[in-house]
């Protein structure tokens, strides 16, 4: 039996042993890398990609990682120009030229290599286009390539794109949507098995970073390709660490367990990050706008008009009843702007002077009265022919911000005698209900790529019926203006037409455009040359660097 002394010392002994083992284990920390090409960046990502096979993945994190693994022929520059080829940066294509109005010829950089040592050839480019265009691959990018008729190889380093028609964004369409794939790796895989192919989880790319490992639900690690033909990346190792909760991801950067959180989203998070002495806050234009969509078709029978929102005047009244500026101030402070139409701050057509419906509750009341919506029974809710002016606001439960906006909208509608009920459901259910037209109103977000052409047309014209124009908005004049705007060859020529188109749409109030977030990012202060390209924050990661005198333990680790 243990003596009293021994019994008393037992817990201390245990603690001593545990600390001893931990101490010994800690001695195993390996270090050693010095110089300009050390450095590790850990990104606190809030989602895990499904696959890293570019045509099959549209999620944001897959795109961020894809930027490092797979090159495009060329990419947009910091100006985000999409007209002609001005400011496009060569990547796999060393140069290009037009061979007639509909033929674009790319000359590949002969130094480009896949990470297994094989050269990148025009056959890869041809294979890539055919794969993206194959309905079996079910690539979300396929609709964006419909104006390219074919891609062929003239020789091993020359790829030829032929277009169906001439338009200002031909070059942009040719290079922006496709990441070139290794034909020698993917050709043997049947296309209907691409989503389950091991390649998607162990990709062989041609970008500045090579794939190292994917720990499911934990992290993806890439390592710099020291032989990268456009120059060795300065940061040696990139890790995406998956944390399915934004607050915890932010905590990771604050606690110095991650280096980057590219979107902080809420004012509270920005404040917390600003208080962390090792972090710097960067801002860049956001590519998402959020709006309340009015469904102009009846939810129970989409062939019939919606009993409330088919009426343009009622939509206008509801839009005028909403004080978007004060809602924005209350929910997001300075982190967002009220969009002047269906656009994010990324788009060059953004113009705060675009005419919008004013906040005018008196006018809103007058319009509703004039349309016969009055409170006949004195219950505080307007009605007409026995039907109350009442509808549902649909949004996903996972979005705290949209919940906040739904409550604010409910209150503002209540003030003019309109009853709005809140439907918070799962994201998958929102997608299904909105996609099938089974909703009254929904708070939706749209991400823009740098071009206004395809996004606006897909979401707000007849081209998007059955697709992204969920509310089935249609105005012939708006479509005429959009058609004219997308054929303008310079921004200066296009801008007035886009403005006229947006003012036409705003006057119809197919939705209420609520907020367009500016992106606030947290980055560790030891990282230099931090540049965010607004359409893709990770596009320029290979140019970031950590000076040798600022390296910390995790930068020096050798394995």
């Amino acid at each position, binding site marked *: 039996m243990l003596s009293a002394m021994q019994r008393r010392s037992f817990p201390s002994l245990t603690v001593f042993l545990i600390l001893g*083992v*931990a101490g*010994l*284990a*800690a*001695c*195993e*920390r*390996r270090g050693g890398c010095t110089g300009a090409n050390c450095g*590790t960046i850990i990104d606190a990502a809030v989602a895990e990609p*499904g696959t890293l096979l570019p045509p099959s993945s*549209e*999620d944001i994190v897959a795109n961020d990682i894809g930027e490092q693994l797979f090159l495009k022929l060329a990419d947009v520059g910091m100006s985000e120009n999409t007209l002609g080829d001005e400011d496009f940066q060569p990547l796999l294509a060393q140069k290009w030229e037009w061979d007639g109005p509909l033929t674009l010829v790319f000359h590949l950089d002969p130094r480009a290599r896949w990470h297994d040592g094989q050269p990148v050839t025009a056959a890869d480019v041809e294979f890539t286009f055919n794969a993206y265009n194959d*309905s*079996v691959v*079910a*690539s*979300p990018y*396929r*609709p964006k390539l419909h104006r390219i008729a074919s891609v062929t190889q003239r020789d091993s380093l020359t790829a030829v794109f032929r277009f169906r028609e001439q338009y200002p964004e031909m070059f942009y369409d040719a290079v922006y949507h496709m990441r070139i794939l290794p034909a020698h790796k993917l050709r043997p895989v049947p296309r*209907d098995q691409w*989503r*389950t*192919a091991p390649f*998607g989880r162990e990709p062989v790319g041609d970008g500045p970073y090579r794939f190292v*490992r994917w*720990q*499911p*639900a*934990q*992290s993806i*690690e890439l390592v710099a390709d020291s032989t990268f033909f456009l120059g060795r990346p300065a940061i040696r*190792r990139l*890790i995406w*660490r*998956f*944390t*399915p*909760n934004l607050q*915890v991801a932010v*905590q990771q950067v*604050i*606690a*110095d*367990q991650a280096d980057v959180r590219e979107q902080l989203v809420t004012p509270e998070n920005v404040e917390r990050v600003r208080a962390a002495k090792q972090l710097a806050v960067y801002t860049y234009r956001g590519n998402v706008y959020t709006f309340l969509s009015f469904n102009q078709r009846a939810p129970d029978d989409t062939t019939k008009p919606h009993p409330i929102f088919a009426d343009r005047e009622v939509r206008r009244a509801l839009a005028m009843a909403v004080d978007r500026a004060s809602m924005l101030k209350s929910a997001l402070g300075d982190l967002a702007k009220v969009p002047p139409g269906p656009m994010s701050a990324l788009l060059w057509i953004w113009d705060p002077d675009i005419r919008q419906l004013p906040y005018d509750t008196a006018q809103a009341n007058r319009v509703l009265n004039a349309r016969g919506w009055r409170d006949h029974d004195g219950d505080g809710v307007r009605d007409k022919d026995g039907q109350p002016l009442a509808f549902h606001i649909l949004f996903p439960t*996972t979005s705290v911000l949209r919940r906040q906006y739904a409550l604010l909208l409910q209150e503002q509608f209540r003030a003019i005698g309109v009853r709005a009920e809140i439907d918070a459901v*799962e*994201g*998958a*259910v929102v*997608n*299904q*209900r909105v*996609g099938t037209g089974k909703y009254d109103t929904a708070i939706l977000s*749209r991400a823009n790529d740098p071009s206004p052409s395809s996004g606006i047309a897909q979401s707000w014209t007849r081209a998007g019926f*059955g*697709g*992204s124009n969920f509310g089935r908005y249609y105005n012939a004049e708006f479509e005429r203006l959009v058609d004219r705007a997308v054929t303008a060859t310079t921004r200066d020529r296009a801008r007035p037409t886009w403005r006229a188109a947006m003012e036409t749409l705003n006057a119809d109030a197919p939705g209420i455009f609520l907020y367009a977030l500016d992106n606030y990012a947290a980055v560790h202060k030891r990282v230099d040359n931090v540049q965010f390209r607004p359409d893709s924050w990770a596009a320029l990661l290979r140019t970031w660097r950590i000076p040798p005198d600022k390296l910390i333990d*995790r930068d020096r*680790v050798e394995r």
Partner: protein
Amino acid sequence: MTGAAWLLRRLVASVAIVFAVVTFVFILIHVAPGRPCPENVDRAVCDELTRQFGLDKSLPEQYVRYLVALAHGNMGNSYANGRPVGTAIAGTIPFTLQLAGAALVLDFLLGLGLGIYQAVRVNRLPDVVLGNVTLFIYSLPTFWLALLLLLVFGEKLRWFPVGGASDPILCPVVNSLYCVVDRLWHTVLPAATLGLVGAAGTARFQRAAMLEVARQDYVRTARAKGLPERRVVLRHQLRNALLTFVTRFGLAFPFLLTGAVLIETIFAWPGMGRLAFDAILLRDYPVVTGTALIASVVVVAGNLLTDILLGLADPRLRVRATTDVEAVTA
């Protein structure tokens, strides 16, 4: 009825329960609204994916196909990432077991100790204080406690990692003593969240069981014989109060599996709960059904194990079970 026959009967019943759970979950997830398509994806793309997943077939046909594949040991492939469901689940089980194991140890060691301590000092100050503290902890929502622990011990004090199961730089795989310690280090906060709440409950149950036994004649007799108090408590009182403990042990399996869903999500723990949670949100039907299958097996096995342990601990229960079965079958 012999013990072997009883066990066989329980095993058959267990298989039936698992089958029923799988069928129920399969039907439920397929009829639930929502489709396994990413947000904002073109409808044509979504239709093609639906066809490739076989969701254009009737529900009975999908169910039969699923059962046939399952009978061949194939749980299908994830819609979200294409991985075989069996592989995906197998990758998460060690993490879930690690977390559940650590939480169970904390739950029962702490809970048992506190329960005994309170029973020995019943109605005295330590008992009252501990009673209120355990009630307070037991009433806490686990997600709230998780966020609190993360804030205090992860973000503010930086004593423990904020989420994840390992250091992604030094220990992406466990290949050294350092990485073993690192893995345990990452387990502390999630296990403490689950274990503390569980321990609070265990302590209250154990205290009540101890006090119940304390009133028994054999305990009074032991004291009357002049046995040392420690021996009375540990040999006579605790041993007989352990039935509650064993029952709670069996019931802890479902709690740890269901409770872990939330905790694994908050702590970015790569376990089965998080896999199931993500799969439900993404309408990843094969993964949802696969995780339900494994979870039901674990729960049924836990209950079976409890019954066996109870039978071993208390021969009266064995007799009663046999008699009950015989009475029913007669």
